[in-house]
């Protein structure tokens, strides 16, 4: 029953003009939410939170490092879900959305790696170490890049998307490895300190900016995803009737 309604919903969104309108309407709201959350988050991060007694001011890196890390992983999960739907039901809009997740996810992975590395210099005395967490995160970046490259390498965009979706699903195994690497292997990287349920070993005063930034980053992911998907759809369907209609009509925004 639920499955069916989900499927129907996807099919309705699967119609290119509807999807196009959906993206057009939703994305500005997401951008606005992103802006607001970021401002609040940055305010907390710089004015409210005291420096850590151990890590002093470098702890402020956490407010971008951790949201970016989480989003890099969450973005991958979203992409994998979309890829699954695309492969099973062959809905074109989900194919496109899955593919468009990759560059955004790659961007967040890059942020996580860069900030982590910058943070590591004062904390661990090294920019880089081949430990399990760091290595698996680097692998995530390359998987993202591989997906983008694979998609771009096909002339037939739909075929490219479907092949790349297979890679997406295979690459999914890397996500739990990233997450649990600190528990499975002794690593330089610190273990789990933040819990949503139960006692978090992080001081409560550090939580608000982290939460705000996390939400901000999620909204941004959604907004960028919709923008990119809309572009890609337009570019793929450039010879289709509905695009021409849009162009002839009130002029496309």
């Amino acid at each position: 029953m639920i499955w069916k309604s989900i499927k129907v919903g996807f099919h309705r969104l699967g119609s290119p003009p509807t999807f196009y309108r959906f993206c057009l309407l939703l994305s500005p709201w997401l951008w606005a939410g992103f802006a607001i959350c970021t401002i609040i988050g940055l305010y907390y991060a710089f004015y409210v939170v005291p420096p850590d007694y151990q890590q002093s001011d470098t702890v402020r890196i956490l407010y971008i490092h951790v949201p970016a890390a989480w989003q890099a992983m969450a973005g991958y999960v979203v992409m994998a879900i979309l890829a699954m739907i695309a492969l099973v039901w062959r809905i074109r809009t989900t194919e496109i959305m899955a593919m468009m997740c990759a560059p955004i996810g790659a961007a967040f992975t890059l942020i996580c790696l860069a900030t982590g590395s910058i943070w590591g210099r004062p904390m661990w005395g090294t920019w880089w170490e081949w430990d399990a967490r760091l290595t698996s995160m680097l692998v995530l970046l390359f998987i993202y890049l591989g997906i983008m490259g694979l998609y771009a390498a096909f002339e037939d965009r739909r075929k490219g998307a479907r092949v790349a979706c297979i890679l997406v699903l295979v690459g999914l195994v890397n996500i739990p490895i990233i997450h649990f690497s600190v528990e499975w292997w002794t690593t330089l990287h610190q273990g789990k300190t933040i819990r949503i349920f139960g006692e978090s070993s992080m001081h409560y005063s550090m939580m608000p900016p982290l939460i705000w930034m996390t939400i901000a980053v999620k909204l941004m992911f959604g907004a960028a995803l919709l923008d990119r998907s809309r572009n890609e759809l337009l570019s793929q369907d450039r010879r289709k009737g509905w695009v021409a209609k849009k162009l002839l009509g009130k002029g496309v925004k």
Partner: protein
Amino acid sequence: MSALLQASRVTFQRQGEDVFEATDLTLNAGQATVILGPNGSGKTTLLRLLAGILKPASGTLERSARTAFLGHLPALKGELTCRENLDFLARFHGAGTLNSSKALARVGLAGLGLRPARALSAGQKRRLGLAGLLVSPRPIWLLDEPYASLDDAGCRLVDTLLEGHLADGGTVALSTHQHKPQLAQGFQTLQVSPARRAEVA
């Protein structure tokens, strides 16, 4: 007459466009089908669809017997000898009553068993491909231009092979351009027509 293969409203898409118009086709035991159409109309694509190599974008396809597909590409390994190629096919698809040597003799390649496949002439390669059909019993034959590069004797050979296969309860669909099969029981034809492009409104 039993249907060995049944396709209804099958289509195939490349780059989001249909290659040919939705097609219905039934291959009955003992009956031959000739697929006609100009270059690039989609005959090969259709045969590959029927063989199960491609997945239809829409429509349904039912096969109730094993399938052999002989395409433009030789599907032979040039480094292996003719006999090794046939032995491999027999083991890969399951051996039948005809062994490799007999199959070679049947298609007029007797004595070439130890020759590496790449040292055959064009027509001999096609004949080796035909021999591959014989070493393993598969009721559905899908042949893409089986007459290409064959001399007159070769064309007659194909006709006799087809008649034998049909008499054994097999079925065959083949595409061809210049030479039409000469079969005692005749054949049905299917004209492939390229899909009209979606109009820009």
